[in-house]
């Protein structure tokens, strides 16, 4: 009797477990627990891929300004999860629209990082050594951020941008790994969804979300709310930017711009934020670009008062490289003798790689209440580069800068072409 009872009980437990398994199996997707709040939507790339084919796409695409190679591949891999198509959705011949998630979930591209970061810095990079048969992995848990590593020299990584006929596709694998980073596990659905447990062929099929992947991201972040801010167009005139769309707050909004700080640590990955941007009709807003601290790439709008997943718009291409202010190509290397000056302390800025004997202008922006920009822009100084394309400038840290974070960037004009430097950040004591 005892044996029959045990057998019956055991069978019922297994049957119950199988019922739940069958339910999940019918759905296909799975979750690993957790989700990314709005402060964890950033992602960056430390491009230390060593294979030549991982960075041999040098063709720019207007829908993805400023990035090529592995960085562009990974950017597109993340953008596929976004709520709506990125810009006009173009830029990948293997899919009609990049941006198919349909949930209240948008990654925010933050460009490059100077290092691999810590396990919660949201940086994608490669790792050297034997892969042990693994293509890439994502470090979890995700709630406080994540880190993705590709086994860089163990596989023949390809950056596309079109179809990939040999090796492994960075974009497809990035899309898969970023699916883990937002909280998805593997799918048992048929039809090779992105979150399949294994990568089929070269992995280009994993670039495009399948219906099961979309159901998965919607299960974590809910289907995209109709009220979610939407960007239809971004127009740049000089340093004035006008965004048109819908769902903007009539009181204040925050505009997210890509930060121009190449930072590999915990402090990196923060977007440059222009605060207090009103939109009286909820469909358009105009703001002034800070002089420095941001980079061309992408832009998003967040309603200031909200903090739910649906208070952030999808990301949209933003290219203001010739619009004055920041942005540009960062071809000039700018540095300073200290990054934590005290008021009254002398500061020497120096640079190299600038156009020979061409005029320069060092500009600044600063934040009143970090990390939000206000309209505090100005010029540090002007002059001419040396005949070796170098330069330096001495200034005394103003007393009024105490306690502020200042972003400084160089602009260099030669034959009508504007090039610029990296941005440096000064935290004034």
């Amino acid at each position, binding site marked *: 009797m005892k044996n029959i009872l045990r057998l019956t009980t055991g*069978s019922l437990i*297994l*049957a119950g*477990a*199988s019922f739940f*398994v069958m339910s*999940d*199996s019918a759905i296909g997707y*799975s979750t*690993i627990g957790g989700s990314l709040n709005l402060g964890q939507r950033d992602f960056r790339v430390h491009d230390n891929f060593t294979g030549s084919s991982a960075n041999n796409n040098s063709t720019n695409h207007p829908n993805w300004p400023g990035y090529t190679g592995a960085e562009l591949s990974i950017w597109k891999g993340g953008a596929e999860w976004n709520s709506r198509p990125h810009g006009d959705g173009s830029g990948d011949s293997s899919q009609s629209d990049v941006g198919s998630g349909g949930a209240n979930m948008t990654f925010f591209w933050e460009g490059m990082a100077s290092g*691999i970061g*810590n*396990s919660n810095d949201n940086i994608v990079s490669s*790792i*050297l*050594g*034997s892969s*042990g*048969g*693994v*293509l*890439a*992995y*994502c*470090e*979890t*848990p995700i709630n406080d951020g994540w880190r993705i590593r590709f086994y860089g020299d163990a596989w023949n990584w390809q950056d596309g941008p079109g179809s990939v006929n040999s090796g*492994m596709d960075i974009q497809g*694998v990035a899309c*898969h*790994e970023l699916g*883990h980073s937002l909280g998805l*596990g*593997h799918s*048992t659905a048929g039809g090779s969804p992105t979150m*399949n*447990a*294994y*990568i*089929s*062929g070269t992995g280009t099929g994993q670039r495009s979300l399948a219906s099961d992947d979309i159901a998965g991201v919607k299960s974590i972040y809910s289907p995209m709310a109709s009220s979610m801010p939407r960007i239809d167009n971004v127009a740049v005139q000089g340093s004035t930017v006008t965004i048109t769309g819908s769902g903007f707050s009539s009181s204040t909004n925050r505009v997210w711009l890509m930060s121009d700080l190449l930072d590999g640590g915990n402090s990196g990955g923060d977007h440059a934020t222009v605060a207090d941007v009103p939109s009286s009709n909820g469909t358009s807003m105009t703001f002034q670009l800070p002089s420095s601290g941001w980079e061309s790439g992408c832009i998003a709008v967040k309603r200031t008062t909200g903090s739910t997943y649906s208070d952030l718009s999808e990301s949209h291409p933003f290219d203001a490289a010739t619009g004055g202010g920041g942005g540009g190509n960062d071809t000039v290397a700018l540095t300073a003798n200290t990054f934590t000056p005290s008021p009254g302390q002398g500061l020497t800025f120096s640079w190299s790689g600038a156009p020979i004997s061409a005029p320069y202008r060092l500009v600044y922006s600063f934040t009143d209440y970090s990390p939000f920009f206000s309209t505090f822009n100005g010029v540090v100084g002007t002059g001419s580069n040396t005949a070796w394309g170098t330069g330096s400038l001495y200034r005394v840290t103003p007393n009024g800068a105490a306690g502020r974070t200042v972003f400084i960037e160089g602009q260099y004009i030669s034959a009508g072409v504007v090039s610029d430097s990296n941005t440096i950040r000064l935290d004034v004591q």
Partner: protein
Amino acid sequence: MKLLRWLTASAAILLLMQAGNACIEELDLQNMISKTDVAVQGTITDVRTVKYTPENDDLLIYTIVTIEGTSLYDNSQITVDAAFLGGTFEGESMMVTSMPAPSEYRLGNDVVVFSGTVQGWGPDIDRCVYASMGGIFRTIDSRKGAVVLGKGKGFAIEGNQLVSTLISNIAKATSEAK
């Protein structure tokens, strides 16, 4: 017999649901054989973790499992130390999506493990559980003999099968490769 099949299938499904989240290439048995030099059926007799920091990189934690059993490639008695990335070392954890599920590598588990050599994983490791969660498979006893639990399409062992059948399939795949 039907009950056994049903139990085996249910256990396999449950294991599949607990499996880790490796991002691995699609593998079939032949592909797995071509990429590994050891396949062992046996018992996990030790599980330990080590930490290692590669040059110019961050700390990594590896789990090493020791399997004592029989080689499926040449029928010899072997003991294999095979590692995968991830684990907890002295209270510090590194959890990665490529790890097998904890239920797969518990001490005392009967398993089939495919293993290959690795470089750059530190002084304590010279071979891996190939494809991490894709290279370890639980086995259970049945009246007909040990059964290895498959992990579905895309894995080296797709469906449940007797270990004796797996050995035959390995021999067949090896001879076809020649």
